[in-house]
């Protein structure tokens, strides 16, 4: 039995310590906004925050995050500047990769409130099959503006 803190709530989960965090979040805790895309850490659809930093949850073991603060898309609050900017720009197409994209961007903005285009391309490595990259970039700049006004 592991004790995990996800979105501010403590969950006692009956999983092996080596279980990928992704599957604990989805199958055991039941938060399905975090997506499975590749299982090898490439696509970033499974991105969550651990202590505010973006990580690929398919490559993170449950045992590694005991005592840490895990945040998923459901814990971002819905009115986070990145989510507002995403809505304003109607960014998602099929939307499957977007929770991961949003989590990656939220972590980037926490670290770099005003990222350049170069920061965005080098730091946000999440993949999008529908090709919403340009709309995302515009939304990231908008999110930075929204955040600075709060």
């Amino acid at each position, binding site marked *: 039995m592991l004790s995990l803190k996800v979105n501010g709530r403590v969950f006692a989960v009956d999983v092996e310590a080596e279980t990928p965090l992704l599957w604990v979040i*989805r199958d055991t805790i*039941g938060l399905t906004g975090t997506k499975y895309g590749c299982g*090898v850490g490439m696509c970033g659809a499974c991105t969550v925050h651990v202590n505010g930093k973006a990580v690929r949850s398919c490559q993170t073991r449950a045992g590694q995050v005991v005592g840490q603060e895990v945040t998923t898309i459901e814990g971002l609050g819905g009115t986070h500047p990145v989510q507002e900017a995403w809505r304003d720009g*109607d960014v*998602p197409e*099929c939307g499957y990769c977007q929770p991961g994209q949003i989590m990656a961007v939220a972590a980037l903005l926490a670290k770099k409130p005003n990222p350049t285009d170069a920061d965005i391309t080098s730091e946000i490595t999440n993949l999008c099959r529908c*090709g919403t990259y340009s709309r995302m970039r*515009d939304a990231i700049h908008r999110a930075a503006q929204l955040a600075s006004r709060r």
Partner: protein
Amino acid sequence: MHFIPKINRREFMVTSFSIGGGFALGLVFPQNQAEAAAIAAQIGRNPWEASLGKEGIEINPWLVVGTDDTVTIRVAQSEMGQGTFTSWSKMIVEELECDWSKVRAEYASVNRHVRENKVYQRMATNSSSSVRVSRQYLQQAGASARERLMAAAAEQWAVPRSELTVNAGVITHTPTGRSLRYGQVAQKAASIRLPKEPQIKTPEQFTFMNKPTRMLETPLRVDGSATYGIDVRIPGMLYAAVKQSPVFLGTVKKFDANAVKKRPGVHSVVRFGGPKVEEGVAVIADSYWHAKSALDLLPIEWDGGTHSNDSSKGFFEMARKALDEPGARVVTKKGDAEGVINSSAKVVEAVYELPYVDHAMMEPMNCTAHVTADRAEVWVGTQNPEEAVSQISKLTGIPEENVYLHNCFLGSGFGRRGANDDVRLAVVIAKQVGRPVKVIWSREETMQHGAYRPMRVSRFRGALGPDGMPTAFHTRVIGIESPYPGDEQTIRGLHKLPYRVTHELFDYHSRETHVPNGPWTSVGRSQNEFFLETFIDELAHAAGKDPYEYRRLLLENNPDFPQAKAWLKVLSTAAEKSKWGGKLPAGTARGIAIGDSRRITRDEITICAIVATVSVSKQGKVRAERFDVAMDTGPFLVNPLAAERQIEMQVVMGLAAALKQEITIEKGRVVQSNFHDFPLLTRVEVPQVAVHFVRATDKPIAGIGEEALGWVAPALCNAIFAVTGKRVRSLPLKNHDLSWA
């Protein structure tokens, strides 16, 4: 009477850049939090649940009016990123004249469609059909409902219908100023029969369609609440990880279930197979991870059968040989093409080859099923729910009426999720397990058991006259495909040349393999248009003419091609918007391509022209800088915002395939397994995409959703030739040395 819509051209033409947002987005931002929240509530997270319209009164199968004036629209097409919930609702609301902020949307019930003799007409989503096929009957459903609501109000007040007006769901009796809301007359309206169906609006009467509307689908995708098939959770549900025969059509020789039965959470190990189900083994467990990690340890012996040594290299060799055999089937024969070519002084000949490509949807294949003695229930994101129901019924013996399929949001489809092999597999497993089972294919399983875009090889020969224009054309295509796609897709787009050529021969062969194929966004065109539009570029070069001017000449001189004028309009739009002929830095050039997505089986076309602006470093590194996509809209463009995004998607998808994607076969099985060897386009590779909608024809077009992709690769490769002098006749580009001096 011939119908000529009057639309102010300047208003209608949408020229917006994906970069900087521009026109389309600026108009439609929500003004405040309350408005944003209202949008957020318009689609439920589980789109199949008929919860939204439960309290209302059904006016017709398409729509329910609540006593609180909400209007719930039933959407009978699958949503995988096109914004179908929005466009479908718009087509009804344009006529219904209700309050858009009170519109709710949910999937139409597949079960009802089956029970009530296809009440929703058609529930398969393919061939860019969501708008093309349904617009008329949806407008009619909206208009009919409006007139019944109006008639109900007229009856209640005992006044003539002609004295009533309606605005945003409020009916007003003009002489007295009295008003009634839709919700107040819905009950009465439900029993009203109209003496005759009302006329639907023509485009010049639209107040809502043809203008950009924010996507109802967005909020659910931003807070993580949208339920994709893979997210479904059913009480008592188990999880399955699956492994299908690595060699297609192979069999399971044996496996040792005891090796994994005692692993944590494992429930059972089952073997599967059957009609249209690849043989394999599944591990069932209490979580996907338990199932997957046990499956990885399960010893399985396979028998690859007769295809164990087949390879895509071998398929190409087979096709190249077939190029020298007279085509088994002749599509076009006009004059004496071979004779003219054989006696011509100037002949251009080229052989083109394209590999298999995977769809690589972000959401891996999956399906959840629960099969009992007399009822089957399935949760999946499918492009073809009605076909799935029929297949479930066949596999289980349960009548279609007792099959309940709950369609989910799709983490894209691109044609792959119309095959329903995920549904069949889940059903044969669930039948054995007796409890609800969610079957998830790993990324590797999804990629290695695809329904790939067919490989294709072609040879083009063209004779040029003294003026450099073609006098004869011989096209021979070798389709390499499983039985699925059939001839129409092999020849699609090449069956009738838009360009003027006096002598023409087009013949082809089909060669079957054991590798499964399926429709891949643009279906046939991403192969055939690459061949044709590259070859036209080769002819222009041989003639010493500018590729844009050359195409103009071919079209202007063709009296047999009624759409030539419209083509020229779209072609010149792409050229002008891309500043064709304007100066570019060294190592950068433009390439052009055009086509109209014509098919043998239907009249509609969508004319699309693309100019790619591309740089190539001396070392041969390709960078797509910008794509200008000009597309004819005809009189209807239901939601320009959604249309523009779908075109951006096609540029990115077409570019990824052209630059770096291929599925190869060795020893009968797929070599690639994940995004490291089948890479998607990355953020840094994405070009600027400028979409230019232009009204070039007066008839409804063939659609938007896959009518641009075919011209991405030829425009790109024609630009590469302009920089490097190297002609690209096969893809992907990663296999080519494009260095130049």
